[in-house]
């Protein structure tokens, strides 16, 4: 009797109607979207060390953030930039925004308008943050900045002479920055910052790249990079670390986390099905051996 019941259950699983799978996948995506579920993704070591690096520097540290990407990778790169800038400003660091890509300057401008102006109106341009803008030259630009920042950036993006900004005092070469954060999606990007600034100048370099690029950069960690966010997931992990330390940000800083919600549930459903499939398979094999 008991045996009979077990067999029917096994049969049900080995001939599982795939529409059951479809239904569960649909629910796994729809429900998180409707309830606006954000998941807590524990930061991986490589993201946590990046967070710790920003967190452990004394307030007032000079952080250069380079925007080396364009519109097509905004869904991945922009959440990283948002999280990093929020973190730096919360902590009281000074933020210098620049770009190796012409399209990158537009993204940093967007960040200023959407994040800094709205959430940190008391932060002063020129004292707490500055937008240096884009300059041509790719890795050659990095090279030049290694010897003279003000030779290349004679003004900020709006054309104001660079010496009028108090936060530029004492910035002569890239070595004067405490940390370089490079957000990239290709060439030139994070890798060039490691090769042309981090390695020769012994300057801490961290940042984030798209998921596609990330595997190429992992080998640089931990010797040549202080940490790295890979793709949307990396951004979500950084947001998680950020919210844990600064709970007041939990309402605002969760772009990456909300996009990750359906991802996590859908992945878990698929994983569950793989496990069920294998258990079914093991029982099936046992049964076929019996007879």
């Amino acid at each position, binding site marked *: 009797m008991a045996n009979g019941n077990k067999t029917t259950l096994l049969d049900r699983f080995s001939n599982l109607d795939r529409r059951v799978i479809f239904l569960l996948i649909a629910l796994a995506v729809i429900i998180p979207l409707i309830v606006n579920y954000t998941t807590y993704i524990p930061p991986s070591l490589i993201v946590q060390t990046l967070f710790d690096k920003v967190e452990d520097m004394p307030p007032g540290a000079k952080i250069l953030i380079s925007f080396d990407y364009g519109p097509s990778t905004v869904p991945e790169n922009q959440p990283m930039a948002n999280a990093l800038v929020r973190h730096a400003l919360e902590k009281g660091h000074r933020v210098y925004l620049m770009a190796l890509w012409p399209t990158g300057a537009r993204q940093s401008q967007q960040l200023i308008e959407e994040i800094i102006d709205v959430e940190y109106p008391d932060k002063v341009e020129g004292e707490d943050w500055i937008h240096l803008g884009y300059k041509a030259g790719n890795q*050659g630009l990095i090279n*030049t900045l290694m010897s003279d920042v003000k030779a290349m950036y004679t003004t900020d993006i709006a054309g104001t002479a660079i010496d009028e900004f108090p936060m530029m005092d004492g910035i002569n070469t890239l070595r004067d920055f405490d940390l370089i954060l490079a957000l990239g999606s290709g060439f030139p990007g994070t890798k060039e910052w490691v090769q042309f600034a981090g390695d020769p100048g012994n300057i801490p370099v961290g940042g984030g790249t798209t998921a596609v690029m990330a595997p190429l950069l992992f080998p640089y960690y931990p010797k040549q990079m202080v940490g790295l966010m890979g793709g949307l997931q990396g951004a979500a992990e950084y947001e998680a670390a950020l919210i844990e330390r600064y709970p007041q940000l939990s309402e605002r800083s969760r772009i990456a986390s909300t996009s990750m919600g359906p991802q996590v549930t859908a992945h878990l459903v698929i994983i569950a099905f793989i496990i069920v499939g294998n258990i079914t398979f093991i029982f099936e094999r046992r049964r076929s051996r019996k007879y």
Partner: protein
Amino acid sequence: MRNRTVITVLIAATFFLPKALWCQPPDSSVTEQVFVSPPSGLNAFDTPSDHAQSLSLEWELSPDDGGGADNVTWYRILRSESAEGEFTVIDEVPAGETEYTDRGITEGTSYYYGIVAVAPGGMSEMVGAGPAVAVQNWFSRDRANLMVIAIILVFAITYYIYLSTTGRELYIRKIAGLEAVNEAVGRATEMGRPILFVPGIQDMDNVQTVAGVAILGHIAQRTATYETQLEVPVSRSITMSVGRETVKQAYLEAGRPDLYNDDMVHYITDEQFGYVAAVDGIMVREKPAACFYLGAFFAESLILAETGNSIGAIQVAGTAMPTQLPFFVAACDYTLIGEELFAASAYLTEDKKMKGSLKGQDAGKAVAMLFVLLGVGLGTLAVITGSGAVQSAYDFILSFFSVN
């Protein structure tokens, strides 16, 4: 095949141009004298191996770049169409560079160039060169290595094709997916259900489609012999034309031209997902006993294979799209992986020359493995021993396989 040499004239004379021409940094005081030595030995010449698209510049670093006063920040490059004419700034390159390629030129025009070293607060005198003229070259020297590799491969393949015609029997291993082709046709015949063949969603300008259609010819011979229904929906009309020729020929060779009709191979739409929507519809309504997916596939691969699976068809897939192979391997009964797709028509036709070309491909693989091992060995040895000779051997072999 020698390059037409370009007359390159070095002008030793230095041009003294008004400083205003070089847009002074706004706040630097003009009175302050900064001494920077100019770079030397500027050479302007036609870029070799190109289609008159650019001119090249070379120079030696200013003594103050990396030495001396060490105050050079960048070099400013200027150009003019006459020796005395007005030089305009075309670009700036960071200190330490000794080369520049000017792509903003017109074929046949003579250009004169100048270069100055720039330091904070001042700049050097200008050094000039020219005239240089861009011409079309007859041989791409930077692709000479590719040519050698191409010749090796072409030679290997044609050599084995030749060898196969001399009567030597060549061994070809079994390819699991291909053994299944005949089995699948047989099963469809038994069940009295049709066979579906999808030659990918690309046009005949993709060699994968050509390979897929060649296999279609073989399958069509079988369906003609067994009188099994064959359905070939396509998403490109040239593929449709070629597919029809191929299937018609197969039915003719099988002695059943009466069974052939043009509508076996029919066009649906060029749109990837529109095509998939329609093929999915065909699958669930006509329930083919066997589905073949042989050609170039993109994201639609898994949609097709999962629908085919749901109707219980035997599925044989083959593609050289590395991104889609995982899905076919997971969802189909047999998958021809990459190169196996191209081997298939040789294998199926039992044609000696075709088999010879497979043997030639294997020779190519041997070359690939040999050079990988050689490169890795030399590279490792160079690091361990630190020997200059080994290092240069390693560099040579690397440059032989570089494609820039």
